[in-house]
């Protein structure tokens, strides 16, 4: 009896499975054009994002160019051991994370506040002009920005020092760029200046998507402007904020190195060296390809962990997530 029921259940399942399979192919056939349209992108992602992962094998070898894959010397986790035993590595990790966190905090708060403020401006002409001026620096290369920043902070007729002297706050020009402790701040502030306007655009778009009826309803209920911002505008763009936050936490460790490289000098080296620069200097430039790859694997693994952690936390707390 038992055997009969189980076997019949098995048969049922089989037919179910077949049915599901058939229905998959049926939908696939029905949507064939959609599938075909997505095919190039799948190939694109595979070629540029997954195929290069093959190169990760290099991190477990003592890679020498011009040798075939099978002739390479396999060394297991040696490269990672070297990495974790290096004091410099911990220093660059500290700098990378510190500048990232400062960048995320400032790079989130400022554009959101700016977007909300711009949204409240009723004079369209002024709004447009303010917006354009604020996002123009985004298109200026870091090389130029670094030049402007160091000129502004210069002791030799630098604007900042001149202003501070004029105000009587200091009586001797300060060498801002020679002070290690100022470096993280300088990088963060120049980054905010450069990217603030650009990052505002996305929030302005999200705010534009909020229905005007809600504001009208709030007005009828007697809410003043501050109340409207607090109860309608900010909740309205909450999901945008959270999505962008999760994504940037995923990039926490990959902050590039242009700003640090261009603004830094030997005096602030202990605070300016970041992970990407480290993998370039101690990896590629010394032909230690395997070591450089190991650094980047570490980089990617940490990024993925951070991304999933952030996603999970936000899912729990706010019920918003990107996955």
């Amino acid at each position, binding site marked *: 009896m038992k055997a009969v029921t189980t076997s019949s259940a098995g048969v049922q399942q089989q037919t179910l499975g077949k049915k599901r399979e058939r229905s998959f192919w049926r939908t696939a056939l029905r949507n064939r054009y959609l599938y075909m349209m997505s095919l190039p992108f799948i190939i694109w992602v595979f070629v540029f994002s997954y195929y290069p992962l093959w190169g990760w094998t290099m991190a477990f070898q003592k890679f*020498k160019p*011009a040798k075939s894959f099978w002739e390479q010397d396999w060394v297991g986790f040696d490269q990672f051991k070297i990495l974790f035993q290096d004091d410099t590595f911990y220093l660059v990790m500290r700098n990378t994370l510190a500048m990232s966190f400062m960048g995320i905090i400032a790079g989130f708060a400022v554009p959101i506040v700016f977007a909300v403020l711009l949204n409240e401006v009723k004079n369209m002409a002024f709004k447009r002009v303010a917006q354009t001026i604020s996002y123009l620096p985004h298109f200026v290369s870091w090389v130029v920005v670094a030049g402007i920043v*160091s000129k502004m902070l210069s002791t030799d007729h630098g604007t900042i020092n001149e202003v501070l002297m004029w105000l009587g706050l200091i009586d001797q020009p300060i060498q801002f760029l020679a002070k290690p402790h100022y470096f993280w701040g300088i990088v963060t502030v120049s980054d905010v200046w450069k990217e603030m306007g650009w990052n505002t655009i996305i929030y302005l778009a999200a705010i534009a998507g909020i229905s005007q009826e809600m504001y009208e309803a709030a007005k009828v209920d007697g809410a003043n402007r501050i109340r409207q911002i607090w109860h309608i505008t900010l909740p309205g763009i909450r999901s945008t904020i959270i*999505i962008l936050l999760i994504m940037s936490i995923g990039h926490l460790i990959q902050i590039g190195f242009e700003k640090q490289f261009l603004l830094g000098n*030997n005096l602030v080296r202990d605070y300016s060296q970041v992970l990407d620069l480290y993998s370039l*200097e101690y990896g590629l430039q010394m032909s230690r390809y395997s070591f450089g790859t190991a650094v980047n694997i570490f980089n990617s693994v940490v990024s993925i962990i951070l991304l999933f952690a952030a996603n999970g936390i936000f899912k729990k707390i706010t019920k918003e997530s990107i996955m």
Partner: protein
Amino acid sequence: MNQISKWSSLALSTTLVAGMLAGCGSNNDGNNEANSPSANAGNNATNTESAAPEDTSPLTLSYYSEDPSPNWANMQDEIGKTLTEKTGITLDAEFAVGDAVQKSSLIAASGEYPDLISAKQSIAKFVDAGAVLDLTDLIDKYAPHLKKLFEGNMSRLRYSDDDHAIYVIPSYNGIGQQYFNAGGGFELQHRVVKELGYPQIKTVADYEKAIKDYLALHPKDENGNPNIGLTLNADDWHMYISVTNPAFFATGGSDDGEFNIDVDTQKVTYHFRRPEEKDYFKWLNHMNAEGLLDPESFVQKYDQYKAKIASGRVLGLIDQDWDYGDGEKALKAEGKFDQGYGHYPVTMSADIKEASFWPTGFMAGSGVAISKDNPDPVRTIKFLDYLASDEGQVLMNWGIEGKQYNVVDGKRVIPEDVNNRKINDAVNFTKETGIGLYNLLSGHYGDGVKDPSGNYYTTNFPEQIVAGFNDVEKEVLKAYNATTWKDLFPKEEEFKVKPWGAAWNIPIPGDSEAVVIEKKLTDITWKRIPEAILAKPADFDKIWDAYQQELVKADVEKAEKIREDLVKARVKLWNE
């Protein structure tokens, strides 16, 4: 509601990303366009190829050089056309821009090698990868001129004590090279020494006094901006040239990269560990405390440094002429000749000999190699051999007879109008004629060597150099009883030739521990030296001691040992 804004923002961010990608894409297009003329030129040449029995059938070789050559004209200049005509060979050249060492590393790792590789010290990476050919037999069979050129120096061409193969034809150091002028030492503006009545400038104390006295007389320039006593150039690798190398020059050491090597015992010391050098940096610390050192020395970028020099406000420099030359050129163009710089052999004390001209003997090492991908190594070596022949060398240096020079009474003479263009319209002149573009391609004689006709191979000879000085420069030199700046410096003959050449010219094997240790040492040094110089004088000793201990902790002794072995191996290789 939430759903909608979520999707709209996602769509927006995708667009942003796409926009960024498009931006990158168009950049690349720009680059491609810039490159395409050379690529086209190369293709045309190969297309017209017809296998003729002679060696002059068209052949295009790809060529990579670690040194930039901004005036390269794809061999469409007059010398280039002559070379193609004589040998059939066209070069499709690629020059590293930006970080050259990194570029070489990438090429070495790619597994696809240019036909001709000129990668200076990075050649070790190509040798490790097995990418370059052993030229010993090729030179022996097909290159009589190269053989004649390197006669007596052939043992110096060999790669290393373990590997006696010849991978590189040295093309950076000319055979028999003599120097007629000095471009290093410490620099002072002509107006400084002139105003002070040409005082003796031999020691750092003299140098300091000159700057101090002049600043006391003229604290500001004519526009009311303060004059700057001494500025240093510490941006990236310029640190070596302007901050750390002068430390051994001023203490009587010669240039062996980051090391000091005893000429008799070949004992190697990381040069910052010499007690004399502590005094040098202490002097810089003192200059800073006195307010004579530009406080921006360690913060300014290279372009800011040059701009500062071009403003004419900087009284003193410690640099090489090729490093600050752009700034001085701007001054000369404005006719401010008295704000140009003279070169003085400054040392810590009068009994120390400034060793800028410590002779190294012929230095093989940097040069051109033939890769294993080269389609025709025999014709390639013949091409390089032609360049090294008397005919080839005169062509490269002087140009074409009847055009860039004439022979008058058996002497090569550059006509006045050509010489004028050469100096005042240098870029276009180089692009049109190709003079100066091919010198690093093959072995050649140095300045001051005469060919069988009794003329110099190169266009740099004493008369020519003196003719290039401006009147202020001549006046200052005359006051110091000299015809060129070199006359002020100790002569080559006063030193014992270094049997290993120079340590910076000895390649380190790619997988040697020293690579990482030396990088760490440089990191420490570049951080600590500026810190020590800018510290309060009372703290200097403390910082210096901490720095020395850090060096020991970073295995400086091991690096010295590895270097010492390399130097001894080089001495054996070159002198057996």
